[in-house]
């Protein structure tokens, strides 16, 4: 683990040095990479604080039993519907849904439902789908959703069951 960390730190330091030198010498590819880095960082910093505050509030206020009832082993088909709805209203996409999914999992949600939620936060975010129809047409969006949603649920159930059988444990302490 220690060795891994030092490689990471060296990588980040090297990257920063590269950017600084690029800007100092006017090296265009480096400058472009720097601009990409900044614009994406800003996009994320707009979203992440809100996401993590909501996660914090969720951890403090929502009881384990509530999550187990709606997203747990006994929730049945309703759990998957909740996962779709929650995924459909998540802002930002995968990188926001991972910490949310992790919180839900920590409070007793079923793995297959968690995977469904992650998938749904990718494919069926409502604002994005509406935006999509204006460029691609409603037929395109409907086909995409009608095909992908059932597949996401089925593969999530299969993958969840497979991993649970193999004693899956997520990374602890995040």
């Amino acid at each position, binding site marked *: 683990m220690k060795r891994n960390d030092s490689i990471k730190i060296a990588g980040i330091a090297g990257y920063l040095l590269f950017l600084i030198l690029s800007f100092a010498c006017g090296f265009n590819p480096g400058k472009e990479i720097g601009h990409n880095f900044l614009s994406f960082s800003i996009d994320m910093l707009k979203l992440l*604080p*809100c996401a993590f*505050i909501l996660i914090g509030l969720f951890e*403090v*206020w929502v009881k384990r039993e509530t999550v187990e009832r709606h997203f747990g082993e006994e929730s049945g088909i309703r759990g998957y519907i909740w996962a779709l709805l929650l995924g459909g209203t998540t802002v930002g*996409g995968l990188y926001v849904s991972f910490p949310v999914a992790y919180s839900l999992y920590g409070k007793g949600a079923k793995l297959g439902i968690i995977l469904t939620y992650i998938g749904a936060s990718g494919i069926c975010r409502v604002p994005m789908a509406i935006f*999509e129809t204006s*460029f691609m047409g409603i037929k395109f969006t409907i086909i*995409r959703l009608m*095909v992908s949603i059932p597949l996401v649920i089925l593969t999530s159930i299969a993958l969840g069951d497979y991993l649970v059988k193999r004693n899956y444990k997520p990374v602890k302490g995040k």
Partner: protein
Amino acid sequence: MYYLYIATGFALLLSFIVNREKTFKAIKIAVRRFVTILPAFLGMLILVSIVLFLIPDKIILNYLGKNNIFIGVLFASLFGSITLMPGFIAFPLCGILLKKGALYIVLSAFSTTLMMVGVLTYPIEKEYFGVRLTILRNIMSLFIAFVVALMTGIFFREIF
């Protein structure tokens, strides 16, 4: 975007009125988790900045606009998997491609892999859910994207 700030602010205020201590605890949890995952986010941002430089929009337009279905779908899923862009950039790009004569099947492969397969989000996903789940989920998502693309192609009568 703004409704997220309003919702968060409202939730925080409500929580504060009902129970101060719990609210502070929530903020503490939020800060701790944010800081713990920050290195992984930094890793992702570094990857994104480099990949977007190597594969700019121009190249995507170039490869996806070609009319060979097989090559189009292949490159579309490759680009979709290894890049990361928000919907408000991706769909206008798809719209341009469509006007230039790109096939729906290709754009379907591109947008679905873009939304579901995350090579660049690997550092984050792995931190939360481990390497095995991350790899399996991404492979499954790639498979789903191929099926979605295939069905799109069939419904738009581009294949068969």
